[in-house]
């Protein structure tokens, strides 16, 4: 039994032990598939699993959401969002 097996249905700790499908990440970010896959190319998030059905862990999903908000709210492009995410991680904020 893992640490969070006793949580009620629908409650997840967004760490590396939980995984989400591409559609879940798109929905959580309010972003198109192409944008999410570009986030992978820019190193904002990592994908696992087969190329036609990639999976993302919980921390990646949160980073994708932050990147999407930065792009949407501040008008930064993907390289800018990737840089901001790197800096936030270095500061221990992500």
């Amino acid at each position: 039994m893992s640490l969070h097996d006793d949580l009620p249905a629908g409650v997840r700790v967004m760490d590396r032990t939980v995984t989400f499908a591409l559609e879940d990440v798109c929905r959580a970010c309010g972003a198109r598939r192409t944008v999410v896959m570009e986030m992978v190319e820019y190193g904002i998030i990592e994908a696992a699993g087969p190329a036609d059905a990639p999976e993302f862990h919980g921390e990646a999903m949160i980073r994708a959401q932050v990147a999407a908000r930065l792009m949407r709210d501040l008008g930064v492009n993907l390289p800018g969002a990737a840089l901001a995410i790197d800096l936030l991680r270095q500061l221990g904020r992500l």
Partner: protein
Amino acid sequence: MQFKDYYEVLGVAKDASPDDIKRAYRKLARKYHPDVSKEPEAESRFKEVGEAYETLKDPEKRAAYDQLGAGYAHGEEFRPPPGWGQGDFAGGFGDGRTGSYAGGFESADFESAEAFSDFFESLFGARRRPAGGFAGGAPSSRDGEDVNARIAVTLEEAFAGAQRQLALDVSERGEDGLPRRRRKTLRVNIPKGVTAGQRIRLEGQGNPGLGPGARPGDLYLEVELVPHRRFTADRGDIHADLPLAPWEAVLGASVPVTTLGGTVDLKVPPGARTGQRLRLKGRGLPGKTPGDHYVTLRVMTPPDPDAATRNLYEQLRDTEAFDPRAEEVRS
């Protein structure tokens, strides 16, 4: 409701040019963006700044706002004139693709999310999401927005897990189709082992969806650890000071150490020094790989030694050749 002086919010003059307004917005948006800002009240300031920009960047809205707001000061009690809201701005505006908070940048790649304040919506109506957005629903149906909130958790709760009652405001549509806020109370399970900055997702507990088949949004709770009087946490590891008597440091000792899981005995080796760190493996926060509990040794001196103790220290002084400053003298 209180009047919001959007010029004051953006820090621009009433006759500011569109470029001045855009510059002020961009600067403040960077400063208060909730994902990057450490400013207090960043989220509410960011939304306010976004609303101000949404209003002042649009000549029509700006003119309407100027007309309505003449004579009002920031924070003053405000009520829209009778009949307001029947015209161009009633029932929403735009296509909703401008951002997760008010005033964001236009992009076809994203959907909108957050609602505006009551003040803004009383002037210009509610933001509408694009018909049939990502979810592909019919124009009359749309998924609810995700809600982000913070939850303060004590280290004890993070260690053992806990249940908490949480109240938050969600946006929903009333029977009249107009947006309204509703206070929602939730019983939240704090999973054991959560760390600062980690998010807990509660599926379907965000804003309700609209129309048949629409899914409610999710609730994301960002964990904030309440400062502890004795411990600090670094992800799953716990750090604390461990005071030692001089003789314990010199001779070594087995000393009781308080951890989140209870008291354990720690063997301090002879010759221990202030600043040395010792590790109690796996005694930090629980996790797939449990964190460790680190103690930093602090050699303390008796605050008010009696005559006998002083005498013993005097004997030490006269017989012990140890010079703690020998290194400094040589260098």
